[in-house]
């Protein structure tokens, strides 16, 4: 009788913030820095570290989309071709001789990314095909379309000035790309924790059926998530085009594995429903540092790939996902 509840608890941040995986990966980053510092003392110079942050930003922004998709319980394997496609699209429009069209380069690139996401979302949510198969097929089709469009040669075009400013320039000595990433981190964290959409993403990742039966438009949530992922990929692609000051065939190919690795080692369950963008951020930093150390150690590319794979497996083994429903 006297038992009364004053207020129902707010969404508790603690439940999502205390994730051992994040500590684990953060410790890993520190270990890498120490090793790097011993092997190659200038590794710890501010200039070098800021450059690492700059490179990690591209990965982190692209992985923001992947985090949303994976939290929802799906996967997006169309990232590599989407990056290349958006970069080529943006630089091609940017290279238009008509300045009024050239100005539209970045918006066109973003819309392109959103469209790729929309197609992915429709396949997964409406046609209900497994995301792994659907997005892989889309990846392949985009790749073919790109070769057809460019004739297999390096596409001609001009990188929009804004993307160069964002990707290469610095403000007060800090890379703009990193500042932009911080904005993305804040935005995505708010989206996941403070909005109803975020609640839906976590709930759907846990049990799509229960969410559907709660009268929630699951298909809409799924399509929106893929569109958002497409837009994040597009932003990343535009930054990468600015960083390289060009778009080229296969520029996204090296990103698929790192993007998924960053999400998964950051504590997000590959089966969906639990995790955080903070984890992905730490994961992206870890992978960037790791890759940098491997090149400092003059590790060949082939071996680097093996290490990436080994790390995914190690992290998964250490975490042993604990999904209550099977």
């Amino acid at each position: 009788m006297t038992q009364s509840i004053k207020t129902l608890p707010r969404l508790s941040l603690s439940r999502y913030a205390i994730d051992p995986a994040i500590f684990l990966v953060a410790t890993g980053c520190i270990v890498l820095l120490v090793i790097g510092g011993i092997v190659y003392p200038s590794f710890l110079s501010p200039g070098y570290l800021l450059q690492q942050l700059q490179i990690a930003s591209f990965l982190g922004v692209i992985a923001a989309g992947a985090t949303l998709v994976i939290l929802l319980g799906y996967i997006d394997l169309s990232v590599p071709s989407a990056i290349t496609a958006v970069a080529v699209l943006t630089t091609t429009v940017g290279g238009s001789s008509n300045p009024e069209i050239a100005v539209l380069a970045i918006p066109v690139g973003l819309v392109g990314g959103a469209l790729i996401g929309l197609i992915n979302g429709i396949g997964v949510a409406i046609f209900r095909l497994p995301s792994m198969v659907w997005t892989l097929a889309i990846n392949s089709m985009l790749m073919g379309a790109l070769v057809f469009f460019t004739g297999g040669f390096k596409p001609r075009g001009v990188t929009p000035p804004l993307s160069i400013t964002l990707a290469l320039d610095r403000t007060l000595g800090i890379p703009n790309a990193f500042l932009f990433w911080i904005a993305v981190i804040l935005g995505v964290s708010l989206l996941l924790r403070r909005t109803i959409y975020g609640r839906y993403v976590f709930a759907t990742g846990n049990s799509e059926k229960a969410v559907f039966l709660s009268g929630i438009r699951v298909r809409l949530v799924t399509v929106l998530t893929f569109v958002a992922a497409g837009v994040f990929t597009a932003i990343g692609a535009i930054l990468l085009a600015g960083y390289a000051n060009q778009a080229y065939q296969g520029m996204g190919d090296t990103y698929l594995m790192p993007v998924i690795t960053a999400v998964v080692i950051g504590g997000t369950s590959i089966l969906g429903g639990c995790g955080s963008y903070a984890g992905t951020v730490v994961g992206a930093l870890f992978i960037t540092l790791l890759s940098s150390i491997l090149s400092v150690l003059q590790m060949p590319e082939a071996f680097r790939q093996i290490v990436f794979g080994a790390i995914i497996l190690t992290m998964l083994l250490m975490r042993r996902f604990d999904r209550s429903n099977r």
Partner: protein
Amino acid sequence: MSNTSRLIELSGITKTYGPVTALKNVDFSCAAGTIHAILGENGAGKSTLMKLLAGVIVPTAGEIRLDGNAIHFAGPRDAADNGLVCMFQELSLMPNLTVGNNIVLSRPQSRFGFLCRSGYQEARACLDRIGAGKIALDCPVHELTLAERQLVEIAKALYQKPRLLILDEATSALGADAVEKVFSVVRELRDAGTCVLFISHRFHEVHSLADKISVFRNGSHVQTFAAGAVDHDGIVALMIGQSLEQLFPPPRKPIAESVAPLLSVRDMSWADELKDVNFDVRPGEIYGLGGLEGHGQQRVLEAVFGVLRGVSGRVEIGGKPFGRRTPFRSKSEEIGIAFIPEDRKTEGMIPSMSITDNMRLAGLGRDGLLTQDNQVREAHYKALLHRLDLVYGSLEDPVASLSGGNQQKVLLSKWLALNPRCILLLDPTRGIDVKTKAQIYQLLSDLAEAGMAIVLQSTDYEELVHLCDRVAVFYHGSIARELSGEMLTPTNLISAAMGLSGIAHATEAAA
């Protein structure tokens, strides 16, 4: 008959799952050549006991003796090799394999690693024996009805030539004829020296079959006695440890025929499972949907809520047609339907999420995209939890940490806070303890008094008789009979559910 030696003996058996004790210090034995019924409320520990005997789980403490020798089972296959075979309540057939393969693979007979054909003949014989002659061995299991699958399960258990056969709710989906056939086989087995442990919630089955009865309550073995030694009421008192008087709220005043219905369903059909279903529910009424499992009563509610695709027919809410139904539209304020699904764990809630998050799930997004909560609804949640007397540690605990009854309370709060006009419930008291049942019945009764239209699908006849104003009994996808007032009795419900009262279906039922 019962003075044969003890086949299996349990002494001091305790089984705990973390902090939960499923069985505590149980001593139990059963003898060859008897049919031994195990009775108890849900959660009394019956299923845990059966799982121990079938080798699925191992006891935390205590000893199992088979023929007087202590024994430890490495797994179900090991137990089956010792002649202990369990037919589980949750059907354990592999849906994509054929009937024959499902049966034969339970005890493969092989030579040099190749399966012998002879197994299939035996499987055929087992099916024929229990009167399932028309089930073909090469038919994939997923094409069978629930009742046919149950028969295959029983045949599979027989095929393993058990010394101890455990039938856990083995006949829950079977009609009276089929049940009688199965029982005659069970009696033959008993006479051949098999010990049969029998779990059923149908008292008349227990009375007609059992030689001995053991009652379990809260994980303890309460009493074992010869069948007939204790009468029906005495057994119920032993099972629940209290009398049944206050289970159901007092009857409500009937709603006048002239009151306009809130929910009308007209000519609803869906696939092969629903045929021209028509009914009206008036505000203030509890409308029951009964019938044997799988005759369409669950489907109707899913169709009304908008879960199924390709439903024909019309639904009207408050006199206005409600087309293009989806769960999202159903819960909107102008429609106001709430839906409590059948399977709490996978459909009703997200087990790993907290109590509050689960509760808020249906209400989220009603007030735009950014406002997270609405003060009125938050107050409503609190009031409901208090009203339903939810027992919990912290509201931030995962909802899976609650007992089944308390989970159902959370699920009810989740929907009632939306102020629905009409609530559809699928077997809301399945697997729930008596005290919570009584609370839920009282709540439903109060909601009806307050003018809500309630549609209650249930497999529990008592519930339909004591709680509902009118009950529609389903048979083969349509309403065979609508019972109300004096006509609403368990006997009429059962005969209608078997298709006996409907003239059109009288011949079909005999088939």
